[in-house]
């Protein structure tokens, strides 16, 4: 199914959980935060939270800044 991750269309497995997506993308879950359709997904909820078609995700981390 099609979802939008950080503004880019991506094809992911139907009903994939946030936890599995994070693993599939090779991300360290301790260094990121996830917003799904403009709502924060708590780290503890990654396993239960499944994606639906056309969901929009923002996945962020910390970078250098002032």
């Amino acid at each position: 199914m099609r979802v939008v991750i950080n503004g880019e269309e991506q094809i992911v497995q139907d009903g994939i959980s946030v936890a599995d997506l994070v693993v599939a993308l090779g991300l360290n879950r301790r260094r990121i935060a996830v917003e799904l359709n403009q709502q924060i997904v708590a780290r503890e909820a990654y396993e239960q939270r499944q994606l639906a078609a056309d969901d929009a995700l923002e996945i962020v981390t910390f970078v250098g800044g002032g």
Partner: protein
Amino acid sequence: MLDTFELAGKKYTSRLIVGTGKYRDFEETRRAVEASGAQIVTVAVRRVNITDANKENLLDYLSPERFTILPNTAGCYTADEAIRTARLAREAGVGTLVKLEVIGDQKTLFPDVPATIEAATVLVREGFDVLPYINDDPIAAKKLEEIGCAAVMPLAAPIGSGLGIRNPFNIMIILEHSKVPVIVDAGVGTASDAAVAMELGCDAVLMNTAIASAKDPLLMAEAMRLGVEAGRKAFLAGRIPRKLYATASSPLDGLIAR
């Protein structure tokens, strides 16, 4: 007695807060932070690179166990964007501090004060320790303090300008009325600027470009550490008043040939 600075319930011995932007790489960032003696470092919140996710992370170099991580909302132009960014930063697990920036204009990067107050109101209610970046405006500082911000952070001059403290008198008025820490944020160019901020009585100074874009960032980081320390000690020591005319330092008695 140890001179400490308290921010959001935590005590710090360093009054220099440094940004982590504009360095060549994470190793240079780490070494500059080390040389600055800073215990609080600012970071930005940005989308992860999903096509190259295995890149190293800044926090692998600046451990949140050792440093207080202060995420910013840099680049946000509305209260909503800043609020979303702050919530994401907190969710990423570095605590409740946030350097709130709501920018009003691309060229000056001056803050949008009404939007900053709007965002601060929401974030304070949600339990954040909000450190707002504002103009050197005593009224804005007062309003943000009343809302419940953990500190106020008036700019010295535009971000990255290196102009130093352009209006020390406004900073003095903010200091006179503020019950929360006053941190000069942005516009510092060199060590004497940092010293001036501390001599005025500011609680701390926050800077990034002045160190990161110096020819030798590590040496400048050390210079800033010393500038902040010198300015703080001078403030505590109590400077002499300015006078128009001379007062001799050597005794007038016992001069020869009188």
